[in-house]
């Protein structure tokens, strides 16, 4: 009996850690991995009629996808929009984080709260607020009309790719700010002083020291914005109209009114694969780029 007790207690760190992790891993497997595997298998089936699905495995749905120029163009557009949004967000958010990390001394706490707060507020409402601004009778148009700058409402504001890009940039900014700030804040200031001491100019210090050291945050921000925005549904549905439509809106349609679950599953799988491939390439090249920089 003692031997049994001893085995129970002398569990290694591995065993202890995994017993603590088991509920989380169980959740991931049951609610994410198995459903995703099932989605993958559904992408090989055929929707025969509204209620009926043929379960013979086939690659036909993937062929369907690439034969429908609409789907392919939506995929390309989704990736393009996400890419632009990621780039704009990074470029605009980086100086803000840089300022707070290196220049703010007083009331840092207040700045940090301001930085984090939008992250938690309703995504739906953040997107919706742009509908108020960009709408035909919205804030923008009514102000310009009132000021006499324009005589007719600008209709291109809403329901366009640009509107989607602006809205996404705003709605996802909070996701970029945090990883960027954390990585900049971590940088030991003595590195920067040492670099200045060794005769590098401010500009060189930034490119050779600060930026490479902040790279984990840059990659984090890229992942955290690019991946979800490719699959964003709310913004194109509310703001995008026909012009700003993205792949998610079609996927939703396949699961909804078009009712072609296999094709929807195939589209979702293609979206996921694309996203994974692109992020792998992006993080790899960014890492290589830094190695060359430093």
């Amino acid at each position, binding site marked *: 009996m*003692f031997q049994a*007790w*001893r085995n129970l*207690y*002398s569990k*290694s760190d591995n065993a202890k850690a995994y017993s603590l992790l088991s509920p989380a891993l169980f959740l991931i497997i049951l609610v994410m991995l198995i459903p995703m595997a099932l989605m993958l298998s559904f992408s090989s089936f055929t929707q025969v009629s509204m209620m009926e699905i043929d379960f013979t495995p086939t690659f036909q749905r993937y062929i369907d996808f690439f034969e429908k120029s609409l789907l392919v163009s939506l995929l390309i557009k989704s990736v393009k929009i996400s890419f632009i949004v990621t780039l704009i967000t990074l470029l605009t958010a980086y100086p803000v984080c840089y300022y707070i990390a290196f220049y703010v001394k007083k009331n840092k706490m207040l700045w940090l709260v301001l930085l984090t707060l939008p992250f938690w507020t309703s995504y739906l409402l953040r997107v919706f607020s742009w509908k108020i601004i960009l709408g035909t009778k919205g804030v923008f148009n009514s102000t310009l009309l009132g000021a006499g700058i324009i005589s007719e409402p600008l209709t291109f504001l809403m329901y366009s790719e640009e509107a989607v890009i602006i809205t996404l940039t705003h709605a996802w900014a909070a996701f970029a700010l945090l990883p960027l700030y954390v990585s900049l804040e971590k940088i030991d200031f003595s590195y920067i002083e040492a670099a200045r001491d060794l005769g590098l100019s401010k500009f060189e210090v930034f490119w050779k020291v600060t930026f490479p050291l902040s790279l984990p945050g840059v990659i984090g921000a890229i992942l955290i914005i690019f991946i979800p925005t490719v699959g964003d549904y709310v913004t194109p549905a509310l703001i995008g109209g026909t012009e700003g439509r993205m792949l998610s809106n079609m996927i939703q349609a396949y699961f909804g009114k078009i009712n072609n679950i296999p094709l929807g599953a195939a589209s979702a799988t293609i979206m996921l694969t694309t996203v994974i491939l692109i992020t792998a390439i992006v993080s790899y090249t960014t890492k290589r780029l830094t190695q060359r920089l430093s």
Partner: protein
Amino acid sequence: MNENFIQINGISKHFGNVKAVDDVSFSIKEGEFFSLLGPSGCGKTTLLRLLAGFEYPTNGNLLIDGSDITALPPDKRPTNMVFQNYAIFPHINVEQNIKFGLRKLGLTDDEIKKRVDDVLALVKLEGYEERFSGQLSGGQRQRVALARALVRQPKVLLLDEPLGALDKKLRDEMQLELRTLQKEIGITFVFVTHDQQEAISMSDRVAVMSEGKIQQLSAPNELYKNPENIFVSDFIGETNFLKASTRSKDGDHINVAIEDLGDFKVKNNLNIPENSSDVVCSVRPESMMISRDKSDWDICLEAKINQTSYLGEMTRFYVEVSGINKVITVSSQHFDNQSFENNTCFISISLEDISLLQKK
């Protein structure tokens, strides 16, 4: 007095491929101040944690006062521990910390009050009941940790380098206090430390550990005077090693040839065999004499002083003996760096002070 109060029988603890404790057996006496001494990574803390129940042995068993505790969880053992960082609960005050372990002992309120008051007096912390960990100094935290463990009246108190975080002066004070306290209450102490001076000055017996094994277990003066191997000789105090080889035995003495010095007859406590070249002679710096003139000791060598360091109560000389390509350390309370002209001196060794040790 129970000679085998704590019995450690063939205990091993492996972490993956690392043998932190490797087949160790010994006993600790009741009421003894026992120290586990060794460099970091030698297995002393693991052995203490095995006694406390935070680790379970890979092999072997542990007995305290005759009962097998090998498989008992920490809360069922008659031991209590003073942690290295004291582990004072930060969310409750000193009094609640001390009472923490009394809940399950089934005491009445009066008994609890008495125990707490007594232990507070014992560790001189009266008046600090309402303080929190953050409001205490290092020394006070250490007293709380001690009180919290002692209030449960354990059979064995385990102390994991409890003085390591204190500054030198406070540490010396606490050494004396701990020793007095232990004699007063008579509880068996198992004390882990890497500080040889601490172990030697406080303990009844010391087990020197290295690489998961006990290198020597004896009283402090024995450790110093009669080290059983090179590790102990080197780890306890300072010493000079001289290469040697044994010749013929002569009773409890043996003839040795010390490299570059000649043949001598020294005591052979460890019963080292004849004609072995795997031996060294160990001579403590303070057992040698340094002088201006030649002496009539067993060995007297002319030497040149390379370097001196003045330590207050003594001076340490690093000398080069003519004919030996080796720096020898000698300490002296009589002379200092001003004492010798032209840096020439004589160093004398008594054969009685030479310990003969075997290489591994």
